[in-house]
């Protein structure tokens, strides 16, 4: 079967990107970048889903990743709206400055 990339390597790519996303969420303080890191996490999941689908010769995973995209779109629209509505009252995107409530 040479010439084929084993499933493990796709999963590894997915895990690597997922961890990069998690790191971005934990380390960055710019709301928009944190938000983009969450998108990386969702994208990483999509790789796994499609790789599993390819391996299992199934379509469920692709439907799942279709739904993940749909959810990502909905989350982005709401999230950016939240950022805008907050920016109106407090013009900053630095998470450390959101400290009226104890984090």
């Amino acid at each position, binding site marked *: 079967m040479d010439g084929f990339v084993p499933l493990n390597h796709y999963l590894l790519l997915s895990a690597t990107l997922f961890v990069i996303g998690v790191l971005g969420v934990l380390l960055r303080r710019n709301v928009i970048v944190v938000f983009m890191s969450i998108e990386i996490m*969702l994208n990483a999941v999509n790789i796994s889903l499609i790789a599993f689908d390819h391996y299992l010769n199934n379509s*469920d995973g692709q439907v799942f990743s279709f739904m993940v995209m749909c959810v990502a779109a909905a989350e982005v629209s709401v999230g950016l709206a939240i950022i805008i509505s907050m920016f109106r009252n407090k013009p900053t995107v630095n998470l450390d400055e959101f400290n009226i409530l104890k984090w």
Partner: protein
Amino acid sequence: MEHIPAPAIDFISLAPALILSVFGMLVLLMDLFAGKNKNLLVFASLVGLVLAGVSAFAPKALPVVSFGGSYVVDHLSVFFTLIFVFSSALTILLSIEYNPRNGIRAGEYYALILFCTVGMILLASATDLIMIFLGIEVVSICLYVLAGIKRGDVKSNEAALKYFLLGAFATGFLVYGMTLLYGATGTTKLAGIAEVIHSGQTNSDTLLLLGTVLLIIGFGFKVASVPFHMWAPDVYEGAPSPVTAFMAVGPKAAALVAFYRVFATAIPEIGTTWDTLLMVVAVATMVIGNFGAIVQTNIKRLLAYSSISHVGYLLIAIIARNSLGGSAIAYYMMAYAFMIFGTFGIVILLGEKNSENLEIKNYAGLGVKQPAIALCMTVFMLSLGGMPPFAGFIAKFYIFGAAIKEGYVVLVVIAVLNSVVSLYYYLKIVVLMYMKDSERELELSMGPITLAVVAIAVFGTIEMGLFPDPILQLTQ
């Protein structure tokens, strides 16, 4: 060109969700013409909720499985539908007087509550990972918006942002966990997953375990269990009070029932690998919730920590993973709904014109000035602390019973001890109300509708404590 066969759609099973979606859209449309007076919207939403509640009883001969095994209507889901409908109705009733006073004017508020309820109903019946994922997202997205709907208030903005960021982060873990479960078993149906695990034909056990851990993280965030509870106090404090009450009951119940379905129906066979982890989480949740609550000075933060500790008790029912556990969760959430809506009704009643008046020390002297309200608050506090003869006692009793039946005695002992600790901060409020004199006069805003909600809640708390059998039978 071959045609796709038309899928069979079971409208009767879906009736509550369909009715509520239609009413949600109706409310959106009516908002265009309603102007400043939102009473019509309130009325339409309540009608929709009542119809949905009635239609939950439409399917004959439960359980009904539809949509190729991805949707099931059983006793558990019917009962949870009732909890959701009931809690949404109470939220809307609490909002009638609260919203104008606090500058929440958007008519979409009611539509979002209805859509959120649709998500919860679907979640209670979902038996497919994709459905569970979408249900959780419908609920979460509505809640992000509802938490931030007090647009002029920085606290509310911050609550929405924190809830959103941590919620979306958790979604990442949840969906990754589901993916690994799918990859290990080759199906997204919970029953199918259980079958594959039972026959030992998983593609990879290690992926299954990794997926389970990620699912515990994801669900842990959604139900606010330790160590993923950090968002709860902030969000509860910043969100408008009716929305906080709503969050503490409906969405939490919905996430718990999905949690229960995944862990008790799909992967119970590998239970020995995850129940230790979940036990540690449950104990930590109870302990940190209760000890965190002791030091709080803000009533909403206190209730947030108290709700974290209640999640700890509820996780015990998931660990027990027997049918008794499922009905114990249902009973507990119903009792909890009464207690929380009553308490938040009182919190809203005590709000003043200019401030929400959330400091616990302002409750001093209430026993003299407002004896009726103080008495109601005492009932709720004792019930939350698990004292007989109130609903909270019976609810805890069933959960512990379910766990003892499976032999988790140590866990139950820890939970009972925690229950005793929790009485300390609940009784602190009672003592403050009766034993101390007030420092200043409060200008209370006694709304008749909010008072009615409190009255309903008191009745429910006492009724469920004295006569638990009829409701318990509904859950089984």
